[in-house]
């Protein structure tokens, strides 16, 4: 049916596949898959339709899972996902993000670094240019660790991409990863004295706007931002939101002016929905104004958070929006965030949400 969707859910205890009709319901939950591993990010490769799930087991280390049958069976490989076999080499704890670009699969890891696979995840190679950046010696971890959590590829140019590293900032490459530069001008870092630094900003989520390759949006520890020059300068668009702090952000697939975010009450106030009232905020004018929707969401005693990869949109019209909470609730909207309904409850803590339609 036209409104059938498949939601890929990464959780603290494995990946789940949730299928149903975004208007009619009938949601079916299958899982946990990926052997119950902690899954930080799960995504669909656009070209092949394969599912990729990145995570890390406290026993068995970091890996990337792949499924070619919509999540029924999985294989995994971390061949080459290493900073070297020397005893002093940093040990990769987990994969925080999987991304795609021009046939390649990318993995963002902890401690922060970028890896790419050109064979569908069978083998990996380190994009060493990023960790060769002269700022590397000064990278400090955020509360969640030194993590590379956002990977955005330019859909029109295979040489260009952006990555986000918590408490380090946004980096961009225009030569396929050989060299990188910081792209943090205009982004506040209130936790360090003095004017905003060149790097050290705590970017929480980078996402590319629909329809234009030059515009990016950013949810940061210290505000929400938009860039129209490939990240060279950022304009703050926090005004109108109840908090500068939050994690997830999802962009309309076609309209560059529309994006959704879920502000949380503050980095030192619990990091849950402001006033315990769940709400999703949407802009339709590039961040000039914001509108809140809580219709269908719990409006009291909702002391839940939503993590950076735990919100997604589908490609339908109107766009469906979905998010998962830190306490295992999965919500969805079939009307671009105007109204919401509970899709699933009692899942493990949700770390990642991806939405696909019956056609992919």
């Amino acid at each position, binding site marked *: 049916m036209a409104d059938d969707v498949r939601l890929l859910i990464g959780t603290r205890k494995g990946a789940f596949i949730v299928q149903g009709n975004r208007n009619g319901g009938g949601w079916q939950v299958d899982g946990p898959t990926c052997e119950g591993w902690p899954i930080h990010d799960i995504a669909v490769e656009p070209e092949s339709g394969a599912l990729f799930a990145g995570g890390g087991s406290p*026993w068995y280390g970091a*890996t990337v899972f792949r499924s070619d049958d919509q999540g029924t069976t999985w294989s995994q490989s971390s061949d080459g996902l290493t900073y070297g076999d020397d005893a002093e080499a940093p040990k990769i704890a987990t994969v925080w993000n999987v991304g795609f670009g021009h046939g390649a699969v990318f993995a963002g890891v902890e401690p922060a670094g970028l890896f790419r696979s050109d064979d569908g995840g069978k083998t990996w190679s380190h994009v060493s240019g990023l960790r060769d950046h002269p700022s590397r010696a000064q990278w400090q971890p955020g509360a969640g660790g030194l993590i590379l959590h956002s990977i955005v590829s330019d859909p029109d140019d295979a040489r260009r991409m952006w990555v986000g590293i918590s408490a380090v900032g946004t980096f961009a490459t225009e030569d396929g990863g050989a060299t990188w530069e910081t792209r943090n001008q205009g982004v506040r870092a209130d936790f360090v004295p003095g004017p905003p630094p060149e790097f050290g900003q705590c970017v929480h989520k980078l996402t590319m706007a629909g329809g234009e390759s030059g515009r990016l949006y950013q949810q940061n520890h210290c505000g929400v931002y938009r860039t129209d020059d490939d990240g060279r300068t950022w304009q703050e668009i926090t005004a109108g939101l109840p908090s500068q702090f939050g994690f997830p952000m999802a962009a309309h697939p076609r309209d560059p002016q529309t994006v959704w975010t879920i502000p949380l009450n503050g980095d030192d106030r619990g990091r849950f929905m402001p006033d315990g009232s769940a709400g999703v905020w949407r802009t339709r004018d590039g961040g000039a104004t914001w509108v809140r929707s809580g219709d269908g969401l719990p409006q009291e005693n909702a002391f839940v958070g939503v993590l950076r990869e735990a919100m997604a949109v589908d490609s339908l019209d109107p766009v469906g929006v979905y998010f998962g909470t830190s306490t295992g609730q999965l919500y969805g909207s079939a009307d671009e965030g105007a109204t919401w309904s509970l899709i699933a409850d009692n899942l493990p803590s949700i770390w990642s949400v991806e939405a696909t339609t019956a056609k992919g």
Partner: protein
Amino acid sequence: MATVILPRSLIALFPAAEHRATVPGSTVGEVIDGLDARWPGIRDRLCQPGPAIREHINLFVDGQPAGIDASVSDASVVHVIPAVAGG
């Protein structure tokens, strides 16, 4: 060849792997290499840079805790056990 006992959670990642396998090697490291030759990628699940056995994987040779350089004989039984500290 040594007898290696693999845990369920590891076999789940390598469906062709056997719970009880006989593997050549005179050290734990060589045994792991032998496992990897049969089930590519299994070494990455057991070892971290060093190389060393992963922090939360306990490995026993004939009932004694063993590291990657520990000796193994043809009569040895090697147990691979996820540590209770993990998870």
